[in-house]
């Protein structure tokens, strides 16, 4: 099998902190999920493959080249950072045009490519609005669009679904699948197993800078199902939503914090839960401002694996 990204005994430390510890791995084409809790070394991994960092020890190659200070390699990959990263005052179109120009597009070509990609990401009608006025989902989509504008071969996604609503999550999952079908190689980092699982079966499980497991999604799935999946929801009518969610079989427990209109739901079947959640929101017209899944259930699996 062809290898696109190769790590050979790679370690990276920052002072006394070891972020990656003697990692050797070959990443083939297709979608690969980089799964691990915060601090596992996922971001360091992505910084190494994008050339922002040099390994303290070992060798990293991407498409057969050393990515460090290799600006030419950036033409072959797109990077979607975890944090919001844009100039808020720019309109969506101006932001995208600028990103395209940084890739070497001439102004007219940059504008044309920007409009095409904005259309593909359902942002064309909002292209003249400043990015500051975009919703969380729109911001995520434009962040993804900027990484795809030059039609890269490899796409790095750092926690792409953080803070996204269920519809946005589904859209992103669909897009990753489409890109994968189009022959792109995608590395997606996440701390939520079921999100990664929806995109790929090929998983690298990271913890404390080490690779615990590779390509064993079913096995991980089995382990994680033993632990309840936590979802935090901020909504205008927390109590009412809680009573409706309790009707579903997969929901084990719900904690309500009235003052913040915040629900913490525990479900044993996250896939099913998210489907039911979308239906509940749409049918009852809840105003949901925030959905997140903390990684404490994944932590339990890691604790189990490292025993």
């Amino acid at each position, binding site marked *: 099998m062809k290898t696109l990204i190769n790590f050979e005994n790679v370690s990276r430390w920052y002072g006394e902190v070891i972020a990656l510890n003697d990692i050797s791995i070959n990443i083939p084409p297709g979608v690969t999920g980089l799964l691990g809790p*915060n601090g596992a070394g996922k971001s360091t991994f992505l910084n190494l493959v994008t050339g922002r960092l040099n390994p303290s020890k070992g060798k990293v190659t991407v498409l057969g080249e050393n990515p460090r200070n290799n600006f030419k390699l*950036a033409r072959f990959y797109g*990077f979607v950072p975890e944090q919001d990263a844009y100039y808020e005052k720019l309109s969506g179109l101006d932001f995208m045009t600028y990103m395209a120009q940084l890739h070497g597009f001439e102004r007219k070509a940059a504008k044309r490519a920007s409009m095409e990609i904005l259309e593909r990401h359902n942002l064309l009608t909002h292209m003249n609005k400043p990015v500051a006025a975009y919703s969380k989902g729109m911001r995520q989509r434009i962040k993804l669009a900027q990484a795809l504008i030059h039609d890269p071969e490899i796409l790095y996604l750092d926690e792409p679904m953080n803070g996204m609503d269920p519809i946005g999550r589904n859209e992103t999952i669909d897009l990753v699948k489409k890109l994968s079908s189009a022959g792109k190689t995608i590395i997606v980092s996440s701390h939520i197993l079921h999100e990664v699982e929806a995109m790929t079966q090929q998983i690298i499980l990271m913890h404390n800078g080490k690779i615990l497991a590779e390509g064993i999604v079913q096995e991980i799935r089995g382990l994680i199902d033993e632990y309840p999946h936590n979802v935090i929801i901020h909504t205008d009518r927390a109590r009412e939503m809680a009573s409706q969610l309790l009707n579903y079989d997969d929901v084990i427990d719900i904690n309500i914090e009235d003052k913040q209109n915040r629900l913490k739901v525990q479900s044993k079947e996250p896939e099913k839960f998210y489907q039911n959640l979308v239906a509940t929101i749409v049918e009852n017209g809840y105003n949901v401002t925030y959905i997140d899944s903390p990684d404490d259930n994944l932590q339990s699996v890691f604790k189990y694996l490292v025993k």
Partner: protein
Amino acid sequence: MPIFEQTYRKWEGTLKTTGIRWLPITKMGIKQTFKKKRFLLFFIGCQIPFLVFAIRLIIGALVPENIENAPEFLKITPSFFAHFLWIQSSFIFIMTIWSGANLINGDYQSNALQLYLSKPLTQLDYILGKLSIVAFFNLTITVVPAILLFILRALIKYENSWFVQNLWVIPAILGLSLAISVIHSLFILCLSAITTNSRFSTIAYFIILFFTDGIADLLHSLRRVHSLLNISISNDLFSLFQIFFGKHAAKIPGYSEKMADPYYGAAILIVLCVLCYFVIKRRVGRIEVIQ
């Protein structure tokens, strides 16, 4: 409908880059800075000395040469152009702050740095792109009007001897403006790279320039050692006038008080510029560590 093979498609072209990679950064920075209305007013205000000098030049050119005891300020000598740049150098100070104080820390705040560095740009491209924004504004109030004044003098009253005799003024204007602009730009970028917002970088810029000025004046008045004037960064910048305009710099009104040793001054500025560049490079390449 196209059917794609679900595998990696090898790029068959050659890896090559075209054009100046950092130019879009500069263009965007200039465009965004010009969108600030107050900045635009200031920018227009910076051209007022040009109008005053142009009027002075026209009057000077029209005064018959055979008039004895014509006022000194009506004579269009190389010190006329040096004087113009001397006045503009005080505007450069504010221009630099306005156009450069938030260039890098603004990117920290908006997390834009990681986007830049995931594009086909080196850290040097990024720094050059940002540096050129400040340098552009500084040059538009120095080199552009100064060269226009020179052309205006040549057009109003063309004298071959004056033109040939003073042709060296053009490279002097270019060299001095470029040196001052780049030095100011590097200073502010460095401060922008080590601070978290534009207010801090502005304050730091003020403190460094005025503090070193005060220390230099104090020590010079106590010890009367000429080279102590070089402690002041402003004096070092002013000393560049002597390098580019030679003895004509001394005719600039008020210049003698600031006349530090030009070669010490240039050496200090070169060291500071190299230091600033490495600080910027280090800060731009820095990665946040989540433990």
